């Protein structure tokens, strides 16, 4: 049984079929790349998995438990976490408070001096994405790239077992992109990052920067017009003529 299994997810917005019978399977510690042209339904799939939207049909199973109808926070408590494509910081709060909100959550446990541990974890999450020096500034002063990294720090502070990242490299410079890709690869293996995490975590990474993504992904799933178009290793996908065609219609192969 995979860590996450989505079966036949469909979602309609008015007259638009955003997703149609999509299956997705993620194994433990696997990095799955999720790609597809603009409007293919990638973000919609993320929202269904996190419970921000409810699917019209289909089910989601996480760690063997059906979560299709659970509220978002209960999914997070089980070990699911995700970032927003457009960062949604708590603008008037300090950067560290943004992460504390996540670290204080129920996944940190409630034993002994859990408050201290949560606070340490929040700092380590900022450290991990490299914005610890901005901890006391209000989130509103961060640059776009820093906001993207704050999103990731917030998700990491919940110590997820499956992390879904919506275009984590967008808006980052090439150097920042490479650094982040390396960090993500380390994160998947597990280990200690300060007081953060140790088990290793699976990831679904939605990206348009394919060359960076293909370096770290184990498997790639291609969405097009709300349906799974192809699935396979990065090498196979890179040579798949159907994928080229879907993207060439957009002229966006990067």
């Amino acid at each position, binding site marked *: 049984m995979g860590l996450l299994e989505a079966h036949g997810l469909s979602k309609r917005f008015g007259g638009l079929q955003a997703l149609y019978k999509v299956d997705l399977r993620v194994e433990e510690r696997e990095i799955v790349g999720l790609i597809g042209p603009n409007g293919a339904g990638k973000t919609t799939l993320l929202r269904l998995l996190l419970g921000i939207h409810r699917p019209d049909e289909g089910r989601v199973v996480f760690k063997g438990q059906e979560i299709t109808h659970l509220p978002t*926070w209960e999914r997070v408590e089980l070990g699911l976490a995700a970032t927003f494509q457009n960062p*949604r*910081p*708590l*603008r*008037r709060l*300090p950067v560290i*408070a943004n992460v504390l*909100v996540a670290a*204080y959550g129920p996944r940190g446990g409630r034993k002994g001096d859990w408050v201290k541990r949560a606070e340490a974890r929040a700092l380590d999450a900022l450290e991990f994405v490299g914005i610890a020096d901005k901890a006391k500034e209000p989130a509103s002063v961060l640059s776009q790239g820093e906001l993207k990294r704050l999103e990731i720090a917030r998700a990491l502070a919940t110590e997820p077992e499956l992390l879904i990242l919506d275009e984590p490299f967008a808006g980052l410079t090439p150097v920042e992109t490479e650094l982040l890709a390396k960090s993500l690869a380390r994160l998947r293996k597990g280990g200690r990052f300060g007081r953060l995490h140790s088990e290793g975590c699976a990831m679904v990474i939605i990206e348009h920067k394919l060359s960076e993504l293909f370096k770290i992904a184990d498997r790639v799933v291609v969405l097009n017009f709300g349906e799974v178009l192809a699935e396979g290793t990065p090498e196979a996908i890179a040579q798949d003529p159907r994928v080229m065609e879907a993207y060439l219609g957009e002229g966006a192969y990067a």
Partner: protein
Amino acid sequence: MTSPLRIWSLPWALRYLKHEVLALPGRTAALLFVLFLLLFPLFSQDPYLLRVLTLTALFALYAASWDLLSGYTGQVSLGHAFFFGLAGYASAILGRELGLPPALTIPSGALLATLAGVLVGLPSLRLRGPYLSLVTLAFPIIATGLIFLFPRFTGGELGLSGLPRLGQSRLEEYYLVVGIFLLSVLFLWKLAGSRVGLFFHAIREDEVAVRMVGVNTVRYKLLAFAVSAFFAGLSGGLHAHYLRVAGPDSLSLFNSIQPVIWSVFGGIATIYGPVAGTFLLFPFLEALRVAEELRMLAFALLILLVMRFLPQGVVRGVLERLEEECPRCKVKNAFTRKACRACGVPLHLEAREVKP
């Protein structure tokens, strides 16, 4: 960071007073304010002044309760009079029917208001922003309708009068209300600064983002409604017994808008702002009572001026000018200091850099 309070040790207390209280204008003002309230009757026991201060303290608690829900949590209530009035009526009716003393009926009324808070909070789980505010607006109107429908039970237009007094004398009532006011506001202030307060803040900023990191926003929103309604109800019950009448005025639109105005005047999402705002505005408006039209006009004019020149609130705006955050360690400093009191970094750098 902050060491535990050791107020029983006099040298420690004096040092704390000097370095942590008197070093900051805001805390000094808060200390003077508390001392003023506690010592005022030593200087004057003029019944009119005591009455104004008692009512001000009641309404300041009411405004602070509004701030916790609307300022902090972002669930803007335009029907707060529902909790205020409901608790007053509940206390009056419980006293009349069961013959219980105010010491029991006022807390019962506040608890009923708490339940009502959860009830009003339920729509907030689906509705956002102005839509929610409109729903909150409806509750006191519905309650007023019910009161006129059952005049035998509620006293109709005249309300229920002749409620038992809070205390034997004006002075006793003053200290009772001021005591409850100070303790309640201290509680609200501590709550707002706690972990729970952080969740309230966060929900106001972006509720979906907060859910996404595993926070049960339903629980915290209902908690904010419940706590806010409890203290609104507490002030409403005290108010009814202080004036010895629970009437439909307590449910009026005007009474719903009052805490909003005081809070906006003082500065929302601060707790101290609404309190200070009420203490600055209420006595002033009370003095204008001689000319009712002038009073409303002054009210409106004042609000326009505040929104124009200090949109973050008068008290908060002034305080932000008197206290300066250290750019490095973020500790607050009095504006007169040249270097940070915690880390020694020079303040007012910009001012110096401008010079050639």
